[in-house]
């Protein structure tokens, strides 16, 4: 499988200000296998997503999208390849000088291949898919946290990507909001999108992914299915699944 239809990270190291965030990290996201990367806050989960997208330059190792190795290349070279991937940032990262409609249609407007009418049709369709059609002409500042995330998902969908990254999509949402996001992710998977989520929310992770990667102190300490994870004897993984007294203040 790990041919042209995957996003890979090979022997990747990344540090900020002398502090190692990732060390010798290998990771592969194959088309059709939905994954979650788990780890405590500050473990470097967001950093992994940004490295995979070529938004940050690694100190060593490389990232490949399909057949194209993007590390060390200027953005203009791999930006076409990267369009196969969309990301839903933690806070939504909606452009706050634009309306919801302009946000969702952003890439289509930029590419300028479609007429305004066609773009509006797509925008409405994506907004109704995530259930916030009524927000079309609102500005991001007028939306609730859950709506922002759903609009961000609609924006990610507008470009029709193969892979969608989710950065802590359920953090800070009420249970209904969490359910909504979970449901959306499952519907996307049913439509053939491959999802990669980073989170520390186990329930959402188990509901939406087949394979799990556990990040601890800059390294991958576990990779496998839910059953393998529950059966794992690695203490950090067990602590994460069922925090006990021993996990206080570690």
């Amino acid at each position, binding site marked *: 499988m790990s041919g042209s239809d995957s996003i890979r990270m090979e022997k990747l190291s990344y540090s900020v200000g002398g502090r190692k965030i990732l060390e010798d990290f290998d990771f592969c996201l194959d088309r059709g296998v939905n994954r979650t990367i788990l780890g405590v806050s500050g473990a470097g989960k967001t950093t992994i997503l940004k490295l995979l997208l070529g938004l940050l330059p690694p100190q060593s190792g490389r990232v490949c999208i399909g057949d194209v190795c993007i590390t060390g290349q200027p953005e203009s070279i791999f930006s076409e390849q990267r369009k196969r991937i969309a990301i839903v*940032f933690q806070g939504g990262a909606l452009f706050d000088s634009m309306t919801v409609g302009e946000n969702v249609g952003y890439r289509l407007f930029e590419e300028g291949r479609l007429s305004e009418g066609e773009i509006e049709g797509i925008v409405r369709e994506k907004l109704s898919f995530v259930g916030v059609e009524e927000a079309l002409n609102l500005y991001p500042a007028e939306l609730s946290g859950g709506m922002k995330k759903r609009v961000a998902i609609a924006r990610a969908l507008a470009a029709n990507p193969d892979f969608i990254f989710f950065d802590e999509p359920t953090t800070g949402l009420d249970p209904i909001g969490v359910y909504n996001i979970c449901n959306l992710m499952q519907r996307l998977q049913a439509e053939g999108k491959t999802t990669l989520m980073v989170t520390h929310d186990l329930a959402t992770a188990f509901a939406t992914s087949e394979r799990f990667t556990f990040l601890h102190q800059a390294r991958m300490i576990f990779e496998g299915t839910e059953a393998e994870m529950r059966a794992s004897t690695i203490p950090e993984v067990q602590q994460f699944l069922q925090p006990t007294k021993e996990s206080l203040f570690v």
Partner: protein
Amino acid sequence: MNIAVIDKIMLNFFAELQGWFALAATTFARVFRRPYYYREFAVQFDKLGFSSLFICMLTGLFTGMVMALQALVQLKPFAATSYVGGMVAVTMIKELGPVLASLMVAGRVGSAITAELGTMVVTEQVDAMRVEGTDIVKRLVAPRLKAMLLALPLLTAAADAVSLLGGYIMASGYGINPTMYLKGIPQFMVFQDLIEGLVKPTFFGFLIAMTGCYVGLNTRGGAEGVGNSAKQAVVVSSVLILMFDFFLTKIFVVFRG
């Protein structure tokens, strides 16, 4: 302070300088390439340029008035008060107009550019744009640079014009009529002064826009980081304006021989 600390500060300084020049070079390389983002340019011109008109005119008015007042007091004993128009014009158009208008704009607009871009960075909007395939230099930096390059000379011209008016208000109190006032101007100035007085603000506009964008795009660390960046951008661009005012003047003087 030991040598290691100095070393670190110097390294930091040169890294920032290098980053600044790299951004400026990239912007110049891409500013004439499609897409041009006309709408963004128009928005920025309105937001950065037109909205500063009032404050620049106010600055011009009072500076012109005070320059005239000072000149009149000095000239009166020599019965040379008719030269006041020329003295106001030469100081305002060559020096104070460009510098004061640019300093006002640096405070008002430099910080606004930095805060806006900084907020976009810390809320990951810039990352989101990049993922959408947008060249952020073309989309965010170039329109702001173009807006400043066009707006600042115009604002300076407005400040200069109003300062001459302010000067006349004071001069009229000393019995100087408009003809006398205007006649004094060419006695002190040549056409080249006018050009120099517009080249300076164009260059300062470049400094303000590039510093604002560079500091904004390199913002780290949430809301506090945005605040720090805005403060830093104003300080750096103000100092750069004063420094380059000297260097530009020196260059102009040398070229005149």
